[in-house]
């Protein structure tokens, strides 16, 4: 099997284990995003693939070749660093040529390669400039250019957009995606930003505490989070979570019963965490909804929609609602209607998703 394969990858620093056995297969041409909070081991995992960190245990193969003890330069991977690591004393062309020169590529070939890549990235006019004279987005492109010129088997990205402002980040995100579609190189991308993960990934790997929580396409993870952690991590604003107890056709939260479809008879009295995404409520009741009384705290207009910061009992919750041009009426909302089909249930003890309605 080609692509990048990790099996039982462990990383320890002395007695402290920070990555506890990662199994992951990245298919050829696939774009996989590792996402998780800081310190979850995603960067360490990426750096092990790159060869910048030794692998304590487990096997790493790239295109079926075991890479554990191969030097980074011989792994045929290229990496884009968070701070770009552009050499300030070299101009754009020399920065991109650095690796090719070290690998003793013939001069003429270097020139055509750089010209081609600069063309792709729109850097042709900037080849003579030093990194200090470039904008953030241009530096980002040079950093990618330096990876692309090498025609590696695998691209590794270590939070490449986190130094950019929000607007530029959105723009560069799209550019990376387009580039991947065009070049079709296997990519592993690390970020802590769930929006980046959702928008870029063919598949997302959610990591926490040195372990993989869930692997799947963005929509799989969004629609069917495997546990509370994944549910809370993906989606913005995050899913509202509240403790409840199951009855035979509802989840009882305090005095309120949220109706649920499905066969719950065997689970009456089970303690659960009820997850309601902010967008999965309406302001009008229907047959498919169940009412939730709230006290409005704050209405934040975003334009076409608004965020409703409200309290349900003592619990703070956030919902989304359409504004229809005026937010004043939203201040008077005293109940929202939860779409019963879309309510998520998790085991209160294990945090794992419960699928009781199948």
């Amino acid at each position, binding site marked *: 099997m080609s692509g990048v394969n990790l099996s039982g990858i462990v990383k320890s620093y002395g007695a402290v284990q920070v990555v506890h056995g990662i199994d992951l297969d990245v298919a050829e041409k696939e774009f996989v995003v590792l996402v998780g909070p800081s310190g979850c081991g995603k960067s360490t995992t990426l750096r092990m693939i790159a060869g*910048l960190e030794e692998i304590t245990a487990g096997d790493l193969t790239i295109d079926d070749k075991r890479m554990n003890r191969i030097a980074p330069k011989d792994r045929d991977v*290229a990496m884009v660093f968070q701070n770009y*690591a552009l*050499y300030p004393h070299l101009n754009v062309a020399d920065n991109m040529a650095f690796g090719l020169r*070290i690998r003793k590529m013939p001069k003429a070939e270097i020139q055509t390669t750089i010209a081609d890549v600069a063309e792709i990235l729109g850097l042709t006019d900037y080849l003579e400039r030093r990194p200090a004279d470039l904008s953030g987005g241009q530096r980002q492109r040079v950093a990618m250019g330096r990876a692309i010129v090498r025609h590696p088997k695998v691209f590794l990205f270590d939070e490449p957009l986190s130094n950019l402002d929000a607007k530029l980040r959105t723009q560069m995100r799209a550019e990376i995606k387009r580039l991947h579609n065009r070049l079709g190189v296997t990519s592993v991308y690390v970020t802590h930003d769930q929006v980046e993960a959702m928008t870029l990934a063919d598949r997302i790997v959610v990591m926490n505490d040195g372990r993989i929580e869930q692997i799947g396409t963005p929509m799989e993870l969004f629609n069917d989070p495997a546990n509370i952690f994944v549910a809370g991590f993906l989606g913005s604003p995050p899913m509202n979570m509240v403790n409840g107890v199951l009855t035979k056709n509802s989840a009882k939260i305090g005095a309120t019963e949220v109706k649920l479809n499905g066969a719950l008879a065997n689970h009456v009295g089970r303690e659960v965490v009820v997850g309601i995404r902010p967008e999965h409520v309406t302001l009008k009741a229907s047959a498919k909804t169940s009412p939730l009384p709230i006290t409005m705290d704050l209405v934040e207009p975003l334009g076409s929609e608004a965020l409703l910061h409200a309290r349900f009992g003592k619990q703070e919750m956030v919902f989304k609602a359409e504004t229809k041009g005026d937010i004043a009426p939203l201040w008077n909302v005293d109940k929202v209607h939860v779409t019963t089909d879309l309510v998520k249930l998790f085991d209160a003890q294990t945090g794992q998703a419960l699928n009781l309605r199948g």
Partner: protein
Amino acid sequence: MQNWNLYARGDKIFAIVVSILIGMFTVATLYPFIYIAAVSFSSGFAAQAGKVVLTPVDATLEAYGYIIKDPQFWISYRNTFIYTIGGTIMSLLFIIPGAYALSRRQLKGRRFFNLFIAFTMWFNAGLIPFFLNMRDLNLLDSMFGIILAFAVNAFNIILLRNFFEAIPQSFEEAARMDGANDFQVLWKVFVPLSKPAIATITLFCIVSRWNGFFWAMVLLQSEEKIPLKVFLRHTISNLSDDDEFAIVQTAAGFSAETVTAAIIVCSIIPVLIVYPFIQKYFEKGILLGGVKE
């Protein structure tokens, strides 16, 4: 924050007083140099009579005429250049790779090696064992010995090591993924990125070599190997005791003092020429020198 037009009257007076005091200190710093220059251009007789205060009296170039005719002056001048250039190159050849290695996380025993080097800043065997060691190594009266034995010091290595350590790790990692080995990482990435620190260390080396005197005096016997500073020392202590010279000098229009002053001027001039160019480096350098163990 500091704006003259917005100053209260008291603050203005304060600033003026301080400016005057600084001016006085500056003049006091500069004056001895002017005075020495004036002596060097004065006649021996006028100098002896205590007439030289600010400007040359009975202006003459006799003292300079005397030293430029002395072949030893030129030999020692040349030697100073050899020691300075050779010694500085030697220092950099040790310090740059050494500091790089010590800055690498992957170096096993890194703590030990750093301590091994830093320890020499705190404990020093002293003059006698060092001297006897030089003798055992057969480096007495050897120009190469001088160049080699003072090539490295812990302070410079630690200074550069700290600078290397502050370079973001991703620069090295990026170069490594591009296929660079350590020598290439050092030469193509770290050295260009560390120009200010290396310039500072080069400056420290040049200054200490140019001024080096004590060990040159102790270790070198041959006249043809001594640097200018030792020559100057000889001149100061010899000329004034030399009766024959005392007779010649009066007739010739120079004296031991004017000759000494002339040698001083000759050996300061190169410092004054490069001084303006190096100033920005030593100001930075002294701050880089925040030595962490």
